């Protein structure tokens, strides 16, 4: 890939960047633990405003800190593919939502970017995707941290070979989807009372009719829908990247270095020295 025609920035910003990543991850984890373990008061009295605020600020703030820490480490080749991932997420997710499907299909772009450009680019794409989608569909906004987690895990799965064989992709999708469902459920419950599409609410209604609490019912629905959704999304992305010409895949240092598509990734590049981010071009 072509190298920048300007001098590379120094390493003075390395420590604050790592600090942002650690703080963002810690904030998201603390928010999740608070919502699931400390907060769960009986929903019958109404969803407490503290839980809603913690959910909004914890997940959005954590996502913003992660993006702030990730953006400086991304190369231009990763940056130019992120808007396309965001646009794909929004365009396909909007169609799936309007059809009232039981799955969302709103992470195809995130997983695609994660597979080609790495976990860091995938996480930033997921978070920014929901932030931008929030301008057209405000219900997407609080799920930004969950989307970042999907991008991060998809990239890590790709790095460890989940996209080298087509039959490995749905297995990775199942695991990533289950984790994503667990994280998204408290947001859906404490922000919107678990309101979703007719398809997803029908699943929650089944669990509620069995006497489950709203958070438990939403978590079970999340585990079902998100796992199925990510299985489909991972398979679609695997089939798309297999159909890409090698020239298109080779422009991404991450895909080249870690041979994320096996023999389809092209020539092996030298191993990078550190980090989960996209290696320097």
């Amino acid at each position, binding site marked *: 890939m072509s190298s*920048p025609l*300007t001098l590379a920035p120094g390493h003075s910003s390395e420590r604050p960047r790592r600090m942002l990543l650690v703080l963002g991850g810690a904030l998201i984890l603390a928010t999740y633990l608070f919502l699931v373990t400390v907060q769960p008061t009986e929903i019958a009295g109404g*969803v407490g405003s503290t839980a809603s605020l913690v959910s*909004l600020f914890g997940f959005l703030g954590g996502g913003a800190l992660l993006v702030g820490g990730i953006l400086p480490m991304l190369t231009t080749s990763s940056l130019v593919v992120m808007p396309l991932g965001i646009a794909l997420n929004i*365009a396909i997710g909007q169609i799936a939502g309007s059809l009232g499907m039981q799955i969302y299909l709103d992470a195809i772009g995130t997983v695609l970017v994660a597979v080609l450009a790495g976990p860091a680019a995938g996480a930033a794409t997921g978070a920014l995707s929901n932030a931008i989608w929030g*301008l057209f569909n405000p219900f997407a906004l609080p799920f930004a941290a969950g989307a970042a987690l999907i991008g991060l895990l998809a990239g890590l799965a790709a790095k460890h070979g989940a996209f080298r064989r087509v039959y490995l992709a749905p297995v990775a999708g199942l695991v990533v989807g289950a984790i994503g469902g667990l994280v998204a459920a408290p947001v859906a419950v404490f922000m919107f009372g678990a309101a979703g599409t007719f398809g997803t609410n029908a699943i929650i209604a089944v669990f509620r009719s069995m*006497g489950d609490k709203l958070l438990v019912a939403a978590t079970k629905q999340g585990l079902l829908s998100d796992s199925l959704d990510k299985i489909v999304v991972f398979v679609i992305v695997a089939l798309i990247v297999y159909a890409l010409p090698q020239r298109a895949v080779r422009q991404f240092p991450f895909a080249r270095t870690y041979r994320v598509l096996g023999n389809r990734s092209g020539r092996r590049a030298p191993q990078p020295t550190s980090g989960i981010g996209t290696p320097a071009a």
Partner: protein
Amino acid sequence: MPRRRIYNPLTELLAAALLVVLVLVVNRWEFSFAVLVLVVLPAVLLSGRIRQISLAILLVAGPLLLSSLLLHGLFYPEGRVILLDFGVARVTQEGLSFAAVMGLRMGVFTGVLLTVAMTLDIPDLLATMTHRRWNRKLVFILGSAVGILPHVALRARQITRAQQARGLVVGREPISRFRALLTVTTPLVIGLLVDASERNHMLQARGFSSSVPRTSYLPDTDTPRQRWARRGMAVAVGAFSVLWLGAGVLP
């Protein structure tokens, strides 16, 4: 006719976000209803895009409100006062009340944010972010994603038509839909990646990765007064939230 812009997009976005925070802090249906009637409704009426915004709010919030009403109205095991009993499903007073509180909250959330978003001047917002020295990569991604969206939708429609001309028929079965989705997405993604590769070369050649401050060709519409107003609004809402929640915690 679009309304004449008075405030900077950043000021409008922050005001909308703070209003949502206030609704969450107060957490009473009366307050949500008042915001909906006294703030959202006039804002939509004065926006100059009444039809488009009303339609968008209806399309985004309508299905969610209806499905929420059905979910909590019929399946609310915590409910004690039963109004109607259908066996598995029971209409309870508590369920309807919960659905109403959540519905009003979602109504405010959608109304406020969609009204601001649909009257937002994106180039003005990006110019302000550049003038205020926001991260250049973030500004590029935001601007590029918003700009590429209609392009992606148009290209997807063109590819769908081309594939239909070659015999693509979308059936009702999931496999058929899955195959149709792949038939459209694969050429779409390949085309977009080729474009992205060209954009990469162009950006590299123009020193995108350098660290010097960027210049915006659009004038800065932000004023010191609005910057102070933004800080003041954030501090006021923060202080109110602390006091309100503190009062709620105290006996």
